[in-house]
């Protein structure tokens, strides 16, 4: 059974954290993540969620508290945005190497400067290589669902990696959507209580976070790299079993009207929904155009992506972050690299668009697809620059 509600996505995210029976929440307020934390504080102070709520003095400490509490064996949660992520950057990398199954919601917002509170993906792209499992979601339902999926996958003893859910700031966090809430009984079946493999307790002393000399560092990092590569089947299992219980199935790469498509648009995050309207109108005109949405960002599903664009002649990649001075935006770089070894590969044209909340309408996507046909598949262009 499930309950249909209309709710702001941030509040729904907090409700999911409650239903996931999280033990420790540590967070510092930053726009546009605030409503999630505020609602969690309410849930704890009203006795609806039995957790320790730690209103830390910085995001650096938010991630540090979660690192400590997760190491103690507690299911731990935090969320942040932009500058907050930049401040906690140091610890984000360490939690992955410590193999701690923390779940973080990242309400994507651009990085300063200039200061801007609006949405793009420059925050998450700055920590692309942090070693967390990283997914993008498209709507409120996917945010709600991925809190449970996140813990289920992260805590799987075959994974033991932190899990980051990217949701677009404002576009998702501040929007009221129709959502389906799961019954607690379903969630409890899907997500058993966290039983850590190792934890900080006097009955079984362990040393965590030892330092490494060059004699062992490479082997340590090889082990960590294998951990995230080998997490793939357990991520798929987490999605599959969630689908079996709820009817909502998720995949590393989501397809939209890609059958026989000669031109494929690639997006990440909530703009996939807007882009699909553009695809519909082109299909109505008889153009063989499709949409591919990258849900799983790390580990990157190279094989699934190659399959998704097979047969296409042109792949139009929309990035929402700049990698200054690079050959392309972060997503296009990844895609060009994934396709390089293919004998027959499509042209990859890269747009950087929708920076810091600049609106993109279906018409803009039509423009990007149209203009891409004439563009070189080298480098990138920033779409819609004024003046």
């Amino acid at each position: 059974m499930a309950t249909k509600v209309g709710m702001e996505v941030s509040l729904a995210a907090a409700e999911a954290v409650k239903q996931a029976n999280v033990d420790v929440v540590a967070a510092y307020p930053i726009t546009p993540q605030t409503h999630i934390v505020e609602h969690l504080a309410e849930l704890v102070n009203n006795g609806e969620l039995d957790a320790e709520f730690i209103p830390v003095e910085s995001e650096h400490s938010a991630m540090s508290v979660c690192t400590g509490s997760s190491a103690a064996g507690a299911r731990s949660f935090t969320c942040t945005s932009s500058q907050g992520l930049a401040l906690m950057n140091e610890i984000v990398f360490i939690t992955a190497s410590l193999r701690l199954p923390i779940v973080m919601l990242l309400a994507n917002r651009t990085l300063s400067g200039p200061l801007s509170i609006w949405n793009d993906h420059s925050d998450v792209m700055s920590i692309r290589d942090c070693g967390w499992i990283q997914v993008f979601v498209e709507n409120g339902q996917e945010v709600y669902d991925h809190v449970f999926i996140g813990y289920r996958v992260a805590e799987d003893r075959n994974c033991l990696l932190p899990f980051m859910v990217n949701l677009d700031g404002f576009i998702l966090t501040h929007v009221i959507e129709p959502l389906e809430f799961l019954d607690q009984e379903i969630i409890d079946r899907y997500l058993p209580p966290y039983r850590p493999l190792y934890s900080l307790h006097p009955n079984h002393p362990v040393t965590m976070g030892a330092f490494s000399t060059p004699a062992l560092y490479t082997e340590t990092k090889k082990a960590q790299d294998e951990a995230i590569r080998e997490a793939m089947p357990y991520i798929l299992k987490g999605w599959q079993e969630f689908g079996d219980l709820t009817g909502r199935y998720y995949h590393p790469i989501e397809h939209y009207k890609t059958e026989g498509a000669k031109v494929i648009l690639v997006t990440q995050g909530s703009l996939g929904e807007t882009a699909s309207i553009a695809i519909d109108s082109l299909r109505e005109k008889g153009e063989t155009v499709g949409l591919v949405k990258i849900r799983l960002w790390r580990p990157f599903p190279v094989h699934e992506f190659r399959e998704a664009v097979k047969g296409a002649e042109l792949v139009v990649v929309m990035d929402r972050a700049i990698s200054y001075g690079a050959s392309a935006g972060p997503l296009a770089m990844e895609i060009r690299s994934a396709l390089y070894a293919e004998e027959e590969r499509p042209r990859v044209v890269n747009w950087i668009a929708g920076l810091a909340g600049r609106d993109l309408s279906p018409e803009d996507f039509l423009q990007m697809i149209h203009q891409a046909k004439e563009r070189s598949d080298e480098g990138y262009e920033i779409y819609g620059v004024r003046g």
Partner: protein
Amino acid sequence: MDKNLDRLNIYASRLLSEKEYFVPGHRACQGCAEALAVRLVAKALGRNTVVASATGCMEIVSSPLPLTSWNVPWMHVAFENAAAVASGIEAGLKVLMRKKRIPQQKITVMAMAGDGGTSDIGLQALSGAMERGHDFVYCCFDNEAYMNTGIQRSSATPFGASTTTSPAGSLVAGQTSWKKNMPEIAAAHNIPYVATACTSYPFDLMEKVKKAAAIKGPAYVHILSVCPTGWRLPTQMAILAGRLAVETGMFPLYEVERGRYTLNVELTELRPIEEYLKIQGRFRHLTQEMIAQIQQRVREEYEKLKKKVQLTNED
């Protein structure tokens, strides 16, 4: 104190546990009083302890992968966040006990850092943890500079000391600022317990650590940890240097219990500061004028402290 030290063997064998939780084999320098301080603190806290360590000498010497000197659960995350990590461990253990997922018992969470990890880069995380009122013990092992990276000055380096980033030059003679008063900063958070201690007074140190662990809420123990390597001091003189730091009034031993100040080693007369300074190479370059300046400051600070004792013990 002196009497106890004279009868060290008798006293120690009767009252101190022989169990070690910070075990031999670590890679600290010869004569390191900080390693001794950590050993005494771990001994005082006993088995039911979880440690969150900052980056620093004690972290590096005790945890070279795949070895460890720790017989209690111990975690290192980064340099500036020992207090935040300890907050998380404390919160985690508390909620798991409340939800009956681990047995109910008293577990002391101890955060440890050097003077740089406490008074410089870790000050914000420590202030936050003290303000939020976590039940933990924070031990600052103060060796008065960034010794791990090669004796660079910190805000806890004393006035005049020569370090690699406050060298005694022809124009500027060593550290130009006065040592940041960390115990007072801790006390200003109105936490239930603040104390200063030194390895040259081992029983006093251990008593204070035990008291800190027994008190509910944040407790801060600031431990002067003599560093022969960084202080340019013969290795056999670490204990003597610590005693002179206390007896000259340079580092008074005191407690602040719920706002009430107590001097633990009350000195009727301060030994001349020169006796402390002259045995250390880091002060070799000091002029008589600078020594007089330090002497005056030490006297003033000691008088201030005595006044606080007086003021907070009036009925």
